[in-house]
């Protein structure tokens, strides 16, 4: 998988550059994200604006990261739309993750 990682307002924003998050890449996604919480947990904004499809294996990987992020860490979702936003809603994961329409909104909410 390809990511574009950058620091904004002192927070790590990781943008997924692949269009699909499914079973074929779920494990790879999970391992790549878990690295960001080692050695120190931090707040990571995962920007999904370029993602057009996510299945239950992809969502499961995100839940697993959330569960294993460590004390003081957080995994925040930004930019989900269309099919991806529908999946978060369908599975009620929009109640589990903090989800924002844009990375800017996520940054603002976290900085408060």
């Amino acid at each position, binding site marked *: 998988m390809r990511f574009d990682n950058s620091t904004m307002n002192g927070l790590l924003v990781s943008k997924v550059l692949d269009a*699909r998050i499914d*079973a*074929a890449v779920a494990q790879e996604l999970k391992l790549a994200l878990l690295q960001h919480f080692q050695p120190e947990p931090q707040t990571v904004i995962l920007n999904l604006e370029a993602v057009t*499809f996510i299945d*239950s*294996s992809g*969502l*499961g990987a995100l839940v697993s990261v959330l569960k294993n992020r460590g004390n003081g860490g957080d995994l925040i979702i930004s930019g989900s739309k269309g099919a991806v936003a529908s999946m978060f809603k369908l599975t009620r994961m929009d109640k589990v993750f903090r989800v924002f329409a844009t990375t800017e909104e996520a940054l603002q909410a976290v900085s408060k």
Partner: protein
Amino acid sequence: MNWIRLTIPSELEGATLVGQSVHAICHHLGLDETTVFQIELCVVESVTNAIRHGYKLATGNEVTVNLSVSGSSVEVEVSDDGEPMPLDSRAALCEGSDVFNFDETDLDSVPEGGMGLQIIRSTMDHVEYSTDGRTNRLRMTKILPKAEEALHG
């Protein structure tokens, strides 16, 4: 022209390809974006299950997706020659499960897996599972929005 059959090897990347193909086909047939996504999602979930659970990720096997479209509905049949689905999973598929009734304030209760069958069940209008001791078939029907409107609206 009302059907197309796609066959892939039992590898997870096959689910990706078949999902994309089904997306392109349904899009071309003029289905609305929501319906296209719902069908693609259920195809990907069931093909992934066939590869992971039916064949236990053993390569060298095949999964087949039959897509047929009429003016009022789309029918998808996913078949494999692997292990049949256990009875409790068939029940979950047909009667529904409570996997999404988790307590969102208790992270430990949030599922990391076991979501696929319930997604299929809640997204499709009709689901049917059958096995003849060799080939397992999961048949899913989606009633097209326009047809539904005519029926209920």
